[in-house]
């Protein structure tokens, strides 16, 4: 009696071993580090590693380690001061070609890393960082779309020489007024052909004939979706420029964006970045003059020297063909004829007209897309705050004009589908599609984050020590076994959090503390039941058996109700609260295993298969 089959013992042992293994990375120190990755035209290689190492040596910064893995260089430093100093040094040494981001990296041995073991992912309240919830003004997005259609329809009718009395917008529709029915019918056909996504309706009134072009609810949904996606793309590009490791930009609901930047310590700068305006311009490439001369300072009048993203100089005509405001959509795909990656761009009426004229005159010549961003940065000079406007301009693509085109055209000659995708994103991301507003912000300073961790960990230890003391005194040997289960339970929670890479927050730590208190509950139930059986005159062995068996359904019922609460919390909570729900749920699940199966295994090993006169309970 009271013996587990061998497989069950092995299972318990195995779970504990695997748990310990995956909890292990949390014991290693986290080094302040820097991650360097290549861009489109420059990969990191052994050579880059050499350049980085030399630059650091020259600057007298000691690196704990420089490793090249997965096309990324990871440099570890002894202190965060070294890390910040190195940031400048490496930026000078490598220039534009590489992206660098500051991060924390655990100093794991290779065998542990090869198992995929990682430390827990700490929430912003523990590691410090910025959380921003952004609201996208959807009404403005729809209003802009209608405005654009109004312009487009006006241009269309003018080009086709259909005379109208008035074009106005009314709610979610564009209303065009005509003098007679014939003109109206012709206009209706034209608009219908050109704008397939609008619902076209003729409206007759006394002495007036109208065409009503309505944005269907479907189309409005599309406009909103587009606005949100475009804003997310824009914000992602800007955040990436900040050089923060592991930034997270996510959609929340149908009009909100959550930006989370762990470790970012300058909320003012972040807010400036998010509010920056950017635009795109299409320009012709100046093929008549030499780029080298221009680089040496002899820029021909009417042209301007630009650089591509990889630093290559390009000479462009000053005259702008179309700007990003005139791009209504951009998507990536494959060219139907050649099967090559391509970007499909749609322009509005005015843009299409200009594009048609320019491309007519310049077939065979290259055209460039320039990305322009206006940033305001504030720096403190001699104790005074100085606002500086900065204009960043770079050429994101150069392609030949194969044939004249207008409203819709495609850009080919891209290296890969990835590049096509990126370009489409950039074309769309040029400007924010709709105004944004920050509706929630939470910034946690690094010192507070550290304090939170220290205090959280301290309360876990003290709480656990108190509980263990009581259990040991009150239930003696059985209590010690329960204590072992509590300790293993803690290891299991940490292991599960590490494996799932679920976010650990301060309320999450509170959840762990609470679980420690509640985990012994299962054991209290079992042990009280065993004592009761003993009092009723059962033999020690039978009491153990009955205690575990009878307490099981009670434990199950009690835990499932707590689990229901955890699930509700998870679905309604945000950020830190979600963290609480996760640790609570994981804690309950793993405590079921450790407190029931785990303690039984140990008790069975000790008491099973022999005559027992009295239990140490």
């Amino acid at each position, binding site marked *: 009696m009271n013996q587990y089959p061998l497989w069950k013992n092995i299972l318990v042992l195995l779970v504990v071993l695997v748990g310990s293994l995956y909890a292990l990375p949390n014991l290693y120190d986290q080094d302040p580090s820097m991650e360097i990755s290549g861009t489109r035209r420059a990969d990191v290689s052994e050579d880059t590693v050499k350049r980085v190492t030399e630059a650091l040596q020259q600057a007298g910064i000691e690196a704990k380690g420089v490793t090249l893995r997965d096309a990324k260089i990871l440099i570890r430093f002894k202190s965060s001061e070294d890390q910040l100093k190195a940031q400048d040094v490496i930026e000078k040494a490598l220039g534009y070609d590489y992206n660098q981001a500051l991060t924390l990296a655990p100093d794991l041995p290779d065998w542990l890393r090869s198992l995929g073991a990682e430390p827990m992912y700490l929430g912003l309240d523990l590691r410090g960082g910025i959380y921003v*919830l952004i*609201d996208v003004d959807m009404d403005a997005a729809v209003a802009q779309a209608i405005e654009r259609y109004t312009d487009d329809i006006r241009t269309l009718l003018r080009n086709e020489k259909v005379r109208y009395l008035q074009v106005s917008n009314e709610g979610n529709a564009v209303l065009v007024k005509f003098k007679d029915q014939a003109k109206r019918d012709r206009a209706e056909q034209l608009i219908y052909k050109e704008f397939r996504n609008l619902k076209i309706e003729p409206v007759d009134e006394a002495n007036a004939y109208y065409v009503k072009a309505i944005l269907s609810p479907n189309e409005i949904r599309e406009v909103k979706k587009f606005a949100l996606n475009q804003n997310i793309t824009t914000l992602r590009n800007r955040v990436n420029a900040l050089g923060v490791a592991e930034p997270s930009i996510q959609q929340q609901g149908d009009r909100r964006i959550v930006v989370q930047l762990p470790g970012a310590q300058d*909320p*003012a700068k972040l*807010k400036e970045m998010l*509010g920056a305006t950017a635009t795109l311009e299409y320009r012709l490439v100046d093929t008549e003059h030499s780029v080298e001369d221009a680089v040496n300072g002899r820029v021909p009048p009417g042209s301007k020297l630009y650089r591509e993203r990889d630093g290559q100089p390009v000479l462009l005509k000053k005259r702008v063909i179309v700007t990003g405001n005139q791009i209504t959509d951009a998507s990536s795909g494959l060219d139907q004829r050649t099967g090559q990656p391509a970007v499909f761009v749609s322009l509005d009426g005015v843009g299409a007209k200009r594009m048609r004229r320019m491309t007519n005159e310049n077939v065979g010549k290259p055209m460039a897309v320039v990305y322009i961003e206006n940033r305001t940065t504030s720096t403190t000079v001699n104790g005074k705050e100085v606002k500086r406007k900065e204009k960043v301009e770079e050429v994101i693509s150069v392609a030949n004009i194969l044939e004249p085109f207008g409203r819709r055209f495609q850009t080919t000659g891209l290296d890969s589908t990835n590049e096509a995708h990126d370009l489409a994103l950039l074309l769309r991301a040029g400007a924010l599609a709709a105004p944004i507003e*920050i*509706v*929630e*912000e*939470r910034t946690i*300073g690094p*010192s*507070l984050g550290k304090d*939170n961790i220290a*205090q*959280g960990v301290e*309360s876990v230890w*003290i*709480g*656990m020590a*108190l*509980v263990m003391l009581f*259990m040991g*005194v*009150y239930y*003696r040997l059985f209590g010690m076994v329960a204590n072992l289960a509590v300790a293993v339970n803690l290891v299991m929670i940490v292991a599960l959090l590490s494996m799932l890479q679920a976010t650990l927050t301060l*309320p999450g*730590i*509170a959840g762990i*503390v*609470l679980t420690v*208190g*509640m985990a012994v*509950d299962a054991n*209290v*139930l079992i042990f009280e039941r065993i004592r*009761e059986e003993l*009092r009723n005159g059962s033999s020690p062995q039978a009491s153990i058996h*009955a205690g575990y068996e*009878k307490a099981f*359904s*009670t434990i*199950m*019922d*009690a835990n499932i*109700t*707590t689990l*229901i*609460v955890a*699930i*509700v*919390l998870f679905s*309604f*909570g*945000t950020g830190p*609260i979600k963290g*609480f*729900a996760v640790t*609570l749920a994981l804690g309950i699940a793993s405590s079921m295993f450790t407190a029931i199966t785990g303690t039984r295994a140990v008790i069975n090993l000790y008491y099973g298969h022999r005559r027992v006169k009295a239990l140490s309970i």
Partner: protein
Amino acid sequence: MEFFKKTTHIDFLSKRKYAFVFSAALILISLVSLVTRGLNLGIDFTGGTLVEVGFKQTVELANVRSALEQAGFKDATAQHFGTSKDVLVRLAPIADMKSAAISDQAFKAMQQVDTSAELRRVEFVGPQVGDELTEDGGLAILYSMIGILIYVSLRFEYRLSLGSVIALIHDVTVTIGCFSLFQIPFDLPVLAAVLAVIGYSLNDTIVVYDRIRENFRRMRKGTPIEITNVSLNQMLSRTLFTSLTTLMVLIALFVFGGEIIHGFATALIIGIVIGTYSSIYVASTAALMLGLSKADLMPVEKEGEGGEVVDDQP
């Protein structure tokens, strides 16, 4: 060591009238306080800006207040947070000012008080988001109660289910009532704690119900009141002991967990004390008052599955 060498024979239910009066009084006080004083809602629910700043040395709050006033924050409240070196400033939403600018300017004002000022925390919640969080919070409490109602109805019986929900409403009302009465700040973590109280208090109740069901089926003699009394006594040491261990860790959390977690720990401590009381005096009494009888808990054909089989085995 054992607190209760033998199973106790306390006649809990004979005192149920006193318990009823006591609970009614608690709820009345809570409701009156909630109506008249309301909750000291944090910016999570009201909207506004909160800035926590750490200084190298002790700062006078008067200096901080006057600096904020000069910077144009008329109705800012400043208070020490944890130590006299930390200051917590609350700012109401300002209509003609960008949210982003408010916290920056408030921090700059405090830097003028003492240059060692270090930004520890900024929380800004727009009024609209505050309303949403309030709504979500209310819904969360409602949905967890409904979920529990369904689960307990399936596993036990509807009278017990109602009894447990009455106990839950009792616990939640009194816990929130305490926050209102003492004007302890009520923010998102406190709301999470209130939900945890729901889970915890129910845990206690379920354990007692489990035993009531078992005894109803096993004991031939005895009225429902007697059987319930026996069940409460049998579970007494467990109920008290589990509450004790949980309270110990919560007190550790309250004392060592830092200022930020105080509200959370307070809510749980209050909730667990109330929950322990209610699992003895409220939940079972309510079920009995609703007319719980032996026949209600006799196993039906359908019920003989899962964990319940274990119950009936010797």
